[in-house]
């Protein structure tokens, strides 16, 4: 039989018909579709038992309660803890992104030591032994004071352990990251005589006058501020925002009062002037519970009549008058200050001026007012035995000059540290421990900070990430992530009640990390002697449990402890000044440098514009950078590709010949950067606004290399009254 072409064709045809009648083509088609629905490279998260752990967030000082949602041993989501006094179920974008920090591939997985510029793994024991040997050597040389510790906070057991260590070791050089709370604390101390935390009973206020505070941009405890703002607004409360740029807070306010940058203090004094002149102040409070108002008026306030204030601030005298009258007429008016999220302490005189306003309307320690909140004093550790070396070291002045005759009122002047180190041939600081802080990124004039850090012989970072500071460090001793550890979170800035929250582990530590508290205790034990004796606990957890005592069980269960009934100390008992009254002025205040608007660095002719930073809830600007989710959620009016957008007024743009979306060079006396131009009517002419929280350097591809770090372009300016950094901006040009 000859198989010719036709037979072959017939065979093929028969085959085709048979194939069509068999399941083969149909099943394959279906299976391929199913395959495309379940591509093997698409991850399939395993199912499991859902559980939750009540904890506290430590990514910012806000102290929100969180509920960590788990599936078996995986953290899948972080939610706000319902019923928590601070945030009651709400949670900010950073808190929501915490899982990405836990599981981020860029975490430091083991202790590292820099050898010849390269990172090498080191065991925990070796690291502690080596550190102890180094510290022993310094003490032996009589340089105990050359050891410093920089922490993100000075409240709670962990910073207290650092402090205790430094004290018993013999160094006064402890720092916490600077913020407006330095100034608030000082303003309260000077006028009321108490070292306490400023709290704001925002939810009960009926007129909040904010001098540039980013009430909903991360000022204070964001969780509380957001909630409280909604509450007092819902009750019909008024909100006025005084700042040169339409921030989100300004956008949510009844009135956006555009003020010349850096002149908020003058405006506050101007308002006080009107209130006093028109006798609108709270007679009851001023007469019975305060002192020094006439003197203060004569010395300072009298110099700020509306016409002059109008010239300084750019606000019409009429507006000033109306504002003062409205403020004084409100039942529960509240004035707040501190720029943006509050990263820069600011001008002490401005804080005093704003606090003066609150005192004039008598809303100190009153519902809807500003409260001096006492610390929950649960840390009651055994007395220290200070040996001779330590005593000698503690006698030495602080390296940054805080507490000295030049800056008698300041506690920490971290921003001055780079200058001091760079000015000396050899760094006066030999060892610096850094915890929950990224000063090489977050201090202004980062080039100088970096230079200073390079000069410090030994920098030890406890960071979980290879951030800018870790990159400058010599040893990395990664702390557990907050989702892996216990830690007390004692206070939320601005929150009006005494509160302690507890961070507790939701999962086992993912890597070879160690609790920083344990490291301190082990280091102390390794050093032995009086130092070891000061740390009698086996480990941090037992220290914490012992410290919290009766509160421990409740904290484990609820995640927080709060004095819910606290509503501000009565006026009669509230003031610990010499006069036992609120002192508008006293001997300390009298010696302060007089108020004048802080001048930013730079020559007006060379740099015609003013660069001001702004904050956003969508950008983390604390010790951790924004996780991928936050960068994803960031507006395209802030970041496009890798370019940050700076905001300028269309009028200014016209003068400069710039148009929307154009790339431009932003230059300041401290550096220059490529930026994109965004035109908006929401900013005062002559200003350039740059967001904080971008421009990280490193190898996190979701964060680093995006945008520009404002701190790189700017520089600190000493406040003549306190010595704190009061820089609100820097002169700049845009071309």
């Amino acid at each position, binding site marked *: 039989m000859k198989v010719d072409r036709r*037979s072959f064709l017939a065979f093929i045809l028969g*085959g085709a018909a048979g194939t069509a009648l068999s399941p083969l083509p149909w099943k394959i088609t279906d299976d391929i579709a199913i395959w495309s629905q*379940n591509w093997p490279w698409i991850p399939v998260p395993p199912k499991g038992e859902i559980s939750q752990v009540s904890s506290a967030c430590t990514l910012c000082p806000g102290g929100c309660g969180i509920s960590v949602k788990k599936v078996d041993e995986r953290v899948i989501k972080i939610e706000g803890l319902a019923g928590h006094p601070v945030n009651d179920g709400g949670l900010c974008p950073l808190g929501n992104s915490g899982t990405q920090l836990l599981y981020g591939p860029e975490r430091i997985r083991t202790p590292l030591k820099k050898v010849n510029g390269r990172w090498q793994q080191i065991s925990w024991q070796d690291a502690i032994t080596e550190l102890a040997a180094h510290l022993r050597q310094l003490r032996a040389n009589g340089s105990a004071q050359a050891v410093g510790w920089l922490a993100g906070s000075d409240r709670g057991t962990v910073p207290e352990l650092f402090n205790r260590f430094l004290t018993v070791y013999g160094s006064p050089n402890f720092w916490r990251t600077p913020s407006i709370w330095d100034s608030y604390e000082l303003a309260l101390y000077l006028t009321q005589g108490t070292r306490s935390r400023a709290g704001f009973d925002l939810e009960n206020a009926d007129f909040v006058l904010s001098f540039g505070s980013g009430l909903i941009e991360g000022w204070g405890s964001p969780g509380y501020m957001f909630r409280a703002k909604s509450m007092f607004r819902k009750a019909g409360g008024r909100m006025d925002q005084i700042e040169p740029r339409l921030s989100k807070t300004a956008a949510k306010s009844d009135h956006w009062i555009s003020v010349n940058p850096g002149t908020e203090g003058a405006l506050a004094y101007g308002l006080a002037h009107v209130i006093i002149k028109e006798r609108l102040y709270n007679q009851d409070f001023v007469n019975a519970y305060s002192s020094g108002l006439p003197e203060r008026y004569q010395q300072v306030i009298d110099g700020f009549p509306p016409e002059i204030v109008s010239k300084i601030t750019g606000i019409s005298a009429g507006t000033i008058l109306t504002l003062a009258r409205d403020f004084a007429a409100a039942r529960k008016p509240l004035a707040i200050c501190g720029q943006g999220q509050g990263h820069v302490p600011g001008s002490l005189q401005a804080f005093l001026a704003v606090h003066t306003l609150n005192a004039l309307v008598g809303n100190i320690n009153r519902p809807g007012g500003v409260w001096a909140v006492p610390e929950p004093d649960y840390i009651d550790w055994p007395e220290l035995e200070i040996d001779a070396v330590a005593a000698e070291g503690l006698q030495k002045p602080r390296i940054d000059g805080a507490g000295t005759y030049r800056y008698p009122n300041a506690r920490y002047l971290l921003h001055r540290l780079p200058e001091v180190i760079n000015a000396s041939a050899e760094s006066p600081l030999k060892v610096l421990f850094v915890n929950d802080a990224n000063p090489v990124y977050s201090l202004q004039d980062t080039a100088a900070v970096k230079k200073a850090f390079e000069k410090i012989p030994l920098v030890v970072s406890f960071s979980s990430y290879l951030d800018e500071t870790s990159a400058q460090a010599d040893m990395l001793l990664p702390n557990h992530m907050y989702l892996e550890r216990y830690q007390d979170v004692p206070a939320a800035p601005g929150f009006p009640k005494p509160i302690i929250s507890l961070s507790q582990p939701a999962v086992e530590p993912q890597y070879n990390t160690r609790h920083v508290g344990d490291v301190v205790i082990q280091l102390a034990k390794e050093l032995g002697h009086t130092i070891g004796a000061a740390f009698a606990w086996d480990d941090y957890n037992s220290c914490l449990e012992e410290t919290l005592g009766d509160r421990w069980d409740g904290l484990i269960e609820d995640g927080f402890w709060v004095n819910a009934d606290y509503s501000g100390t009565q006026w009669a008992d509230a003031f610990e000044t010499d006069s036992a009254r609120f002192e508008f002025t006293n001997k300390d205040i009298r010696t302060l440098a007089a108020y004048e608007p802080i001048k930013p660095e730079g020559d007006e002719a060379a740099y015609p514009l003013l660069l001001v930073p702004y904050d956003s809830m969508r950008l983390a600007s604390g010790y951790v950078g924004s996780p991928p989710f936050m960068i994803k959620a960031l507006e395209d009016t802030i970041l496009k590709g890798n370019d940050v957008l700076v905001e300028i007024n269309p009028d200014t743009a016209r003068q400069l010949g710039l148009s929307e979306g154009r790339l431009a060079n932003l230059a300041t006396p401290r550096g220059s950067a490529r930026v994109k131009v965004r035109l908006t009517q929401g900013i005062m002419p002559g200003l350039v606004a740059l967001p904080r929280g971008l421009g990280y350097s490193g190898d996190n591809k979701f964060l680093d290399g995006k945008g520009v770090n404002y701190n790189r372009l700017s520089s600190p300016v000493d406040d003549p009254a306190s010595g704190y950094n009061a820089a609100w901006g820097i002169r700049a040009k845009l071309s």
Partner: protein
Amino acid sequence: MTTEELANEASAKDQQPTTPPPEISPSTATDDNGSGGPIILFFILGLAASLIVGWVIFPQLLYSQKKQPVDFNHALHNELVEDSCESCHFFREDGSYSGVPKLAQCIECHEEVNGEDPEEAKFVNAYVANNREVPWLIYSRQPQNVFFSHAAHVKMAEMDCVTCHGHIGESESLKVYEENRISGYSRDIWGRNIAGIKRNSWDRMKMDDCAECHRNEGVNQNSVQTLRGGCFVCHH
């Protein structure tokens, strides 16, 4: 086809009646023009071959055979436990379903070898001793986009396990797991029958099988598009 071939063919055909090809099959010989027969034969040959490929060989090739790591005896366990299936495949308080037990659950009874079954010994030595989860191959595993609520079926609708899972609870050993090489799913989803024909409610676990029951029972027939089950009942 080249032109030569075409030309040759044309001329060959022309010559056919006078010079028959040397090899003639009987069917060709009986055919009028000598071409219809073999064509039909070859057609049938092709048809038969492809039918065999499609119905017999293809299913063999489509599925790979995998043995379960441990041969589990459902029947035996079922006798020993109090709460039948739910003793091991239980509901959690939040209404979620635990599915195949984790090692921790098995350890409650099998911390050490209890009986004489070599499979139990294997289980204890290989998994319990090393604290390693057993990589069970799950016959009823559905894609991630399928949301199946055991609570809705077992607790609310009070269905029994057999309706969907068959009599696996009475089996003394685990059958071979056949995995579809393309889709990666167990053969039990499509069903043993390659044509997709089912005799029992537990023979298949494709979407249409779920839909059939939902339709018969009138469950969630709220879709605007299909007037049937809303998609979000099972998918998200």
